[in-house]
Every structure is written in C-alpha cells, then in structure tokens.
C-alpha cells in the first residue's frame, strides 16, 4: 500500500500475484477464446468437402453386371461414363475387339479395366464419349485424339489421358479418384497403331 497525494491510499497488487478480478477476466477471456476456436474448427469440419462417391474419393462402380446394366454396350467395348467422378471406365479386352472389328463380347474383364479421367490433359476440356467413326476419344476443344486406352495419337496434348488405380473386392470395381496416375507419354502403343490421317474422325 502506498500513499498518493491526490488519491489517498492506493491498493497495488503485490508482484507475482493476480487479483480476483484479473483472474476472472483472464479466465473469461480464455474461455471465450477456446469457445471461438472450437466454433471455428467445427465450422471448417462441417463445411469440409465430402468426396464420397465423387471425383477425389473412392468410387464404387459395382460389379461388371451392374455396369452392364447402366451401359448395355459395355461388354461390347463401349466405355461406361461415370460422370459423377468424370470417368471413362473401359473394358479393355472388349474394347480391343471393338477397335479391331472382331466384335468380341466380354461380360467381365476380371480386372482388365481402365479408369480414364475425362479431363483432357491438354487444357482441361471434358472429352466426349468414344467417337463412333475412329473408335478414339476425340477432344472437341483442340482436337487431341486418344485411343480407347487413353494413349495419345494426335493433337496438341502433351501426353495420354490421366487415369486412376482400380481395385476389385468381391467382384466390385472400386476406383480411387484421389490418386491420379499421369497418362502415358506420346509414342506409347499397346494396341491400335492406326495412323490418324488414314481414318475418319468426329472432330477436325
């Protein structure tokens, strides 16, 4: 306690101690602060995007029979479009038959499948369904062309179409669209080595 000329006796708090009022105020501040942090964290968690079943998450496409129900031409090689995750799901052996004209039907390719990303690796346009004339994927924007395996054959794209890993559990195809695999480099030829100039196209 000190004596001040104009205020009289002034109570000063001893060094290292905290007043009751100061303690309450500090606790209130900490409490409100914690509550605000909790609210902020909860808000972010609430609004955090849920990718289940869509692009970026694990996508369940069902069994080969389920896919054939959605896309009846799938056992004949026509790619199945699962647009919620921007996918072309390709039945590879049937697709090969579609391209070489043998018209092979494969009901369940047993893992010989390909999940291609529909986004063109050139500038990101959405690639339309397989062109009927060339049996290639032909981007409308700048004319990049890919085989049914997503290998680049023509146009300005720097590589083949990107793809996602596929796993099978109990016959159900699952695509992990969170893990993009960069498309094969230009010049990769698994099958279908046709020359772009010698076949008809849907786009220029």
């Amino acid at each position, binding site marked *: 306690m000190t004596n001040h000329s104009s205020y009289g006796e002034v109570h000063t708090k001893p060094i290292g101690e905290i007043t009751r009022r100061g303690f309450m105020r500090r606790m209130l501040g900490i409490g409100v602060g914690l509550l605000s942090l909790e609210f902020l964290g909860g808000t972010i968690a609430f609004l955090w*995007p849920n*990718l289940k079943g*869509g*692009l*970026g998450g694990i996508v369940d496409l069902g069994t080969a029979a389920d896919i054939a129900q959605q896309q009846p031409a799938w056992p004949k090689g026509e790619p199945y479009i699962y647009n919620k995750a921007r996918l072309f799901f390709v039945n590879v052996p049937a697709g090969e038959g579609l391209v070489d004209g043998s018209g092979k039907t494969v009901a369940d390719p047993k893992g010989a499948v390909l999940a291609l990303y529909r986004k063109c690796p050139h500038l990101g346009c959405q690639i339309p369904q397989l062109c009927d004339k060339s049996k290639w994927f032909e981007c409308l924007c700048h004319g990049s062309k890919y085989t049914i395996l997503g290998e680049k054959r023509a146009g300005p794209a720097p590589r083949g179409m990107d793809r996602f890993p596929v796993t099978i559990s109990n016959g159900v195809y699952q695509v992990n669209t969170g893990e993009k695999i960069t498309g094969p480099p230009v010049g990769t030829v698994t099958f279908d080595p046709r020359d772009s100039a010698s076949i008809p196209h849907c786009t220029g």
Partner: protein
Amino acid sequence: MSFPGPGALMRYVKESQVWRSLFRQPYPTTSRTRALAVMNNVFLHLHPVRVKRHAVRYTYTFCLGGISFFLFLALTVTGVYLMFFYVPSVTRAYQDIQSIGTSVAFGSLVRNMHRWAAHLMVLTVFLHMMRVFYHGAYKPPRQFNWVVGVVLLFLTLMLSFTGYLLPWDQIAFWAITVGTQMAQYAPLLGSESSFFLLGGIEVGQGTLIRFYVLHVIAFPLLAAIFMVVHFWRIRKDGGISGPV
C-alpha cells in the same frame, strides 16, 4: 349526419395513440430539437448532426464513398429480387439466368441493374480509395478507418468474384477455375484452401452452392458490419478530412 372535414380528420389522427407513440416530439424547428431528432433516430444517428462546410463540397470527395454505399444498397435490393428466380443448381442455374432475361417481367432490367451496379461499385470503391490516398486522408487519426476501408475493398472484390460464378456459363466456369487455381499457390495451406473453396477438386455443384451462400449472405453481412464501423469512425475521427 355530417362528415368531419380534413382538418378535423388530421387532428383526430395526430391525437391518436398510434401517432403519438410513433412521433413523440413535434416537428423539430429549432437547432436543438433538430439535433435531438438526428441523435434519437437509429437510422440517422450514425451521421453527425452537423458537418463542416468543406465536407459537403462535391468536388472535394466526389461523393465516391456515398455512391459506393448507394450501389451496395441497390445491389442488395436487386439481388434479393433475383433470388426469387434463381436456383443455385448446376442443372438449373444457366436456364434460370436465361429465363430471368426472357420470361420474368422487368427481369432483364433487374439483372442488368445488378450487373452494372456491381461493376460500378468495384470502380467507385477503387476511386474512393484513390481519392482518400491522394488527399492523405488516411493519416492519423484516420489510420484505423483506412484499414477498415481495405477490408471493405477486399469484401467488394470477393462479392464480385463469387457473383461471377453464379450465371454458370463458360466464362464463369473458367474464371473460377483459374481463380481457385491461384489459391493453390498460397503458402502452406494452398491446396487445402482451394479444396475448401471449391468444395471438391474441380468447379462443380459444391462450388456453386458455396459461392452462392457466400455471395448472398456471408459477404454482404460482413460488408454491412464493416460499413457501419467505417461510417461511425469517420465521425469519431473528426469528420471528413479537410483541405490541408
């Protein structure tokens, strides 16, 4: 039977309990009562009762802040009108915008008022900032209000950016694709912030609804709160800065 004349009718209305509860004081005729009328009204009290003569000179401020505020109000009203006809869904948004222009009475007018007011607001906010800067009106004691103004500029730009996506046409889609790709270059939380903004890994339904909610409620509400502080601070910092 005789009907009361207009004078008697007016007297009757003015002596009614409803009238007297709405207007407690008579019409202000003196300086003191006029000042009280401003101070006692919730809508008027943000504004000072008196301003300096130079503050109302048009060529000093060009009323750029006032015009920005007016445009904000116009945008709020026309925006609410548009909300009656616009559904933020990827399957409907584009058609809704088309039908606002073709089959809603005055729809084209309202949409274009909203669009042009938005463009103009970005312009007037920017010019207002330039005016304040070149007058040195950000100097003490007005530094805090300059900071509030910078926040308001940011909110104006964010309102403009979020509104850009809503027509859901090609230019909207690609502008937001590019804009959110820029967020990926932010340090530490770059890809997370882009992911959070987009509501996914590419522009889609999640993005549209996020931007819509931000555009129609979050940003306007924040802007309104900051505007209240902004106007209040002008007054507390001694009114509009004068010529040096």
